[in-house]
């Protein structure tokens, strides 16, 4: 009797000891990202893979709707209720770094030299502030012209020959637009959604193609309100007001319209690939952005991962490991296949040169520009409002663009002024 009791106590002690020892090594880090179905699903799988390789580290994924993502972060992080690792749009980096939400990545794991070797130049430049690097991405995105092949056929156009120039784009858009008996647009030839990717198409592509430069080299001066810029802006708004091939919020928004097959063409990003592939009966293709006067341009952007400031010790180690995992080649590859965003490491794109859709987006990276935002949402709203002014209030495009430039300049000035307090 006595022996069995001792035996029980000993085994209990061993069990508890093992449990406690196990606990001591266990670290849980939280990872926040915004809610996008394909990304969330893939991340759940990736986390399982990471945890299998790193026993003792647990990652908890929390997601927020896109609209409220920044607010939640701004509310939680300063109060110490934020995550350990966080996913953010590169355009928010200046604000978040300045507000002290993020800590610089350890040079040992993510040195500047290493970043320059691993990622695209526009990535390495955008994540560096004051000589320190603050985040690393898994994937990057560019824009392409996406189009509905079935609607092309119905309009008598060859679905394998999408438009290559702006002139061809306009001609096709007119053929692809359908109206009801009253003249209301019921099928949009070319979606016009500035609050989607429309504003970046204007900002980094159309402006440049018409001969204007959107911003100064340091990003602190707005330079698009030149005659060339106005010409570009008016080209965009004329499609809405004169040709009526599309208008903002047609069919709720551009993504809804395209997936509902009420639209033939849209300018959208590579992150949409998985979403579109999931839609039943949607035959779609991608083409390089139309050129103008032989000029090609594209807009590249990326969501990137960073470590929240204040994280240290075992959590910091786990976070660094997680970041290294997220930027590893195999994860970038999975990301491309399951989400559609392009690998942030140039060399990894080689094997996709033959995929008809991915190849198109990859080509865009070669001549892409990334805007140095200070407040992406605010700057987007300014251009969006400018288009609304022209479309809804019949404001002269030149006047609308000048007003937008002034507003944006003020926004940028206020941002840098505050930083010097």
């Amino acid at each position, binding site marked *: 009797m006595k022996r069995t009791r001792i035996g029980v106590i000993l085994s209990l002690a061993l069990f508890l000891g093992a449990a406690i020892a196990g606990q001591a090594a266990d670290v849980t880090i939280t990872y926040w990202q915004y809610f996008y179905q394909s990304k*969330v699903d893939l991340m759940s799988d990736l986390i399982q893979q990471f945890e299998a390789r790193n026993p003792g580290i647990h990652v908890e994924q*929390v997601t927020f709707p896109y609209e409220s993502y920044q607010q*939640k972060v701004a509310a939680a992080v300063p109060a110490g209720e934020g995550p350990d690792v966080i996913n953010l749009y590169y355009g928010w980096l200046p604000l978040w770094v300045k507000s002290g939400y993020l800590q610089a990545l350890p040079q040992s794991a993510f040195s500047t030299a290493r970043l320059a070797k691993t990622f695209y130049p526009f990535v390495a430049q955008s994540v560096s502030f004051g000589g320190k690097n603050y985040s690393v991405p898994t994937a990057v995105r560019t824009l392409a012209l996406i189009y509905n092949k079935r609607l092309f056929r119905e309009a008598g156009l060859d679905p394998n020959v999408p438009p290559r120039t702006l002139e061809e784009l306009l001609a096709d858009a007119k053929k692809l637009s359908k109206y009801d008996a009253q003249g209301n647009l019921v099928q949009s030839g070319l979606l016009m959604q500035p609050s989607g990717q429309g504003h970046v198409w204007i900002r980094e592509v159309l402006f440049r193609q018409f001969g204007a430069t959107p911003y100064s080299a340091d990003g602190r001066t707005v330079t698009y309100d030149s005659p060339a810029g106005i010409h570009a802006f008016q080209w965009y708004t004329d499609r809405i007001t004169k040709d009526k091939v599309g208008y903002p919020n047609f*069919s*709720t928004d551009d*993504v*809804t319209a395209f997936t509902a097959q009420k639209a033939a063409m849209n300018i959208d990003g590579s992150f949409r690939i998985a979403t579109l592939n999931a839609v039943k009966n949607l035959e779609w293709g991608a083409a390089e952005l139309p050129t103008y006067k032989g000029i090609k341009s594209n807009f590249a952007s990326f969501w990137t991962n960073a470590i929240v400031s204040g994280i240290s010790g075992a959590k910091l180690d786990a976070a660094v490991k997680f970041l290294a995992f997220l930027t590893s080649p195999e994860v970038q590859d999975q990301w491309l296949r399951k989400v559609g965003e392009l690998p942030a490491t140039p060399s990894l794109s080689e094997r996709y040169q033959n995929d008809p859709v991915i190849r198109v987006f990859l080509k865009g990276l070669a001549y892409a520009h990334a805007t140095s935002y200070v407040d992406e949402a605010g700057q987007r709203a300014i251009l969006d409002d400018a288009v609304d002014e022209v479309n809804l209030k019949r404001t002269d495009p030149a006047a609308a663009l000048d007003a937008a430039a002034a507003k944006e300049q003020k926004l940028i000035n206020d941002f840098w002024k505050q930083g010097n307090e």
Partner: protein
Amino acid sequence: MAATKGRTPAVAPAYVVLSLLSVVMLFPFLWMLLSSLKDATQIYQMTLFPANPTLDNYVSIFLSRNSRFPQWFLNSAIVGVATTVSVLFFDSLVGYTLAKFRFPGKRIIFLLIISTLMIPTEMLVIPWYALARALKWVNSYWGIMFPGMISAFGVFLMRQFMATMPDELIDAARVDGKRELPIFFAVVLPLVTPALAILAIFNFIGNWNAFLWPLIAVATPRMFTLPVGLANFSGEAGANWQAIMTGATVSMLPLVIVFLIFQKQIVKGIALSGLKG
């Protein structure tokens, strides 16, 4: 009733107007329900009835891997029930005290409580948020519930009811040596059950439908209440209209059930709120 008979103009036109109005009032709900039965292709076609009605949307909203809808439903239920219980207890207790007890400062306290009705919630959400952050209540059930635990309107309602209550039963219980709180539960509350019913129904409805404060008080989608979750169905990846319509239908169901069961109380409660002035 002030109904006029006989020499009034024909009643038929009145019925026509009333029925037309009913259509206007009800059609949106019908459209919502019909839309929820359409799948992704049918919903974008302009037909009234779905060619192939399907319950897929309902299945997806409740059972799909990433859907937090059941959680939101639960959150709304928890918040609704908890606040209603609290309101029933505290509002009737305060109403009873103000109606049946004599003590210095009674008038001032009553006016104080009623005057809080003048302060709109929209003004208070910012300090509430500051308070919730300071006390770490953000993103918890308590954080969503705390402003609604006691309602000044309910106090007013209960006081009115209790004022008309006869004192004999209470006095008899006191003479019997019963303590005050047991008297409240055993004698007072049973006498005002109609008022309690109205208070409970309106409080539950109000809480179920609350939007501004829950929107602010929660930080992660896991803690959304149903209205907040519904508002977040549309986002960067377009508007999933069939899911939105399905979510809207489900979010109404408990209230429609409450409504059908407690019709009389609801109408009476609204009428009362109007006549108190």
